[in-house]
């Protein structure tokens, strides 16, 4: 076994990495804070937010009112744009000084980049892409629930002897709370030394695209492989219902919808009240993303499609005539309006 950077006996507190961009905290950071607060109240741990970047005064002022006990701010010019190398270098210094017991990061591109690199430089374990977190009642260890094989298998993972216990959490799995502090949490500014050589990579351009966030949409109309050639109709149904469009991986690979609308294991976990799934076969990789829907409607021409096992209302028929008639019903009566 590789020697731990520090031992469980030396470790204390729960830390949450607060990801931010253009002055906005990432939704997953707020979701993790809610869960971390729940864990902290069980164990009596201090909850610390870790904010890294450059020129952080405004966002630190805002973050200090989140439901956390203290805010650690690491500011440095070489942290102005995210690079895994510089962020991991700085985070490692701070972690080794402060020795948290648990460190949570969002399973976003930046969060995963940082977590994977940092875990190795700290010689500790990382439970990636958790769909739930809890504390072991017997020994207080962090238990991360992860799914594998397209979401069909769930495993619980613990890190017994190495610290910090690191986990990344998928966006959308925890509900954020509105809990806020009236008085700002104490802000501790930590100085770190980052040599220029610790930032070998330069961000030379950034192209932002408007991304849909369908993780909290109330209503979804979802296109699967069987929706080939029917996209205008699917869009009409979504329009009539004031629903967002979602898509399976196949549909996204075909270019029928953007990657931001992909539902499932490698896409978004959604929480709609209503999901109308058109022409999806129902692979577990996809259905894990709609499990939490209140009502699932499935349309598919194949009576054997597994999607029907996961649906409340099932229509076994060709998409075209059914969806066309359904759009006509909603459009003539307008009952779909929110």
């Amino acid at each position, binding site marked *: *076994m*590789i020697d731990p950077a520090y031992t469980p006996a030396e470790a204390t507190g729960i830390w949450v990495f607060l990801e931010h961009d253009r002055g906005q905290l990432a939704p997953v950071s707020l979701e993790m804070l809610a869960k971390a607060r729940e864990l902290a109240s069980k164990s009596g741990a201090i909850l610390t937010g870790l904010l890294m970047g450059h020129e952080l005064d405004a966002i630190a002022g805002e973050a200090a009112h989140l439901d956390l006990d203290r805010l650690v701010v690491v500011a440095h010019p070489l942290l102005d744009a995210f690079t*895994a*190398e510089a962020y991991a270098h700085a985070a490692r210094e701070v972690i080794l000084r402060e020795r948290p017991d648990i460190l949570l990061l969002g399973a*976003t591109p*930046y969060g*995963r*980049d940082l977590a*994977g*690199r940092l875990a*190795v*430089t700290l*010689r500790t*374990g*990382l439970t*990636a*892409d958790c769909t739930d977190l809890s504390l*072991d009642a017997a020994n207080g260890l962090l*238990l991360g629930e992860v*799914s*594998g*094989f*397209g979401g*069909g*298998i769930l*495993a*619980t*993972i613990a*890190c017994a002897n190495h610290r910090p216990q690191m986990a990344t959490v998928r966006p959308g799995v925890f509900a954020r709370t509105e809990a806020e502090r009236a008085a700002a949490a104490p802000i501790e500014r930590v100085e770190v030394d980052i040599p220029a050589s610790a930032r*070998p*990579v*330069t*961000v030379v*351009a*950034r*192209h932002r695209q408007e991304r849909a966030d369908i993780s909290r949409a109330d209503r979804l109309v979802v296109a699967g492989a069987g929706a080939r050639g029917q996209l205008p109709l699917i869009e009409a149904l979504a329009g009539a*219902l004031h629903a967002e469009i979602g898509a399976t991986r196949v549909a996204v690979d075909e270019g029928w919808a953007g990657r931001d609308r992909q539902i499932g294991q490698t896409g978004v976990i959604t929480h709609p*009240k*209503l999901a109308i799934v058109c022409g999806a076969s129902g692979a577990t990789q996809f259905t*894990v993303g709609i499990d939490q829907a*209140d*009502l699932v409607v499935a349309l598919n021409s194949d009576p054997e499609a597994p999607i029907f*096992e996961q*649906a*409340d*209302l*099932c*229509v*076994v028929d*060709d998409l075209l*005539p*059914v969806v*066309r*008639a*359904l759009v*006509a*019903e909603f459009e003539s009566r*307008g*009952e*779909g309006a929110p």
Partner: protein
Amino acid sequence: MNGELHSLVCLKVVPKSEEVSVDRESKTLDRGHARSEINPPDMNALEMALALKDRHGGRVSLLSMGPPFVAPMLRAALAMGADHAYLLSDRAFGGADTLATSLTLAAAIRKIGDVDLVLCGEESSDGATAQVPPGIAAWLDLPQATYAHSVAFDDTRDHILVVREVHDGEETLDVPLPAVLSVKVSTNEPRFMDTARLVCLRANDPVTTWTAADLDVDPGHLGGAGSPTSVTGLGEVAGAGSGRRREVLKGTPEEEAHLLYERITEFLRSAGMPARGG
């Protein structure tokens, strides 16, 4: 970069995810009935490496960790145009988490030597953690660029420009070589293997197998023994969908649509999202 470009592609052989189940008695994964395949995103990494070789010359090595039955799949990947394959095969590697896996792959890359570019798929279809590429980069103290769509060399050929996907768009990174890349799934169309090349490979087998003894690593840092994390519980997602009503609405398409319309509007009303004006 000194001389020719040497790319190394990490390939993971995974069971086809839809064919894996959990043995409810033993709480272990039943992979016995699952066919194997090269992790699909790794094929995109291989295609990116082969395209770089087409454009800039040089050579492509393959690296995989797995049981001996992986070797024929490496030969198929060689037949697509790679030059040499290294298979890390030893019971001591088994049960590795991301720390031990990335350590083992990094040790092999160090031993292979003179690698300019390490390419991996963005994540594996079985574990889907995407943590191994940054882990390899950290062990080797190399820069990383994940979720890459495209790579281009600058004039000096000692840096690459990588376009990669991030949460709200794309960014272009200037990355000095050597470096570790992870390649976004579906970013290219992997080529077919060249069957003439496959025949040629049979005569002159370029698959080197290494065991733990071949790597300069403390055996205690390998496999399950070297993994800080451990699985404490395992289960199949059985609850999912089991509470669903699975009610089939039957009729002509118009009748089905009408039934759906009634049930959906009734549901929306009961869910506090009533009809127009509500």
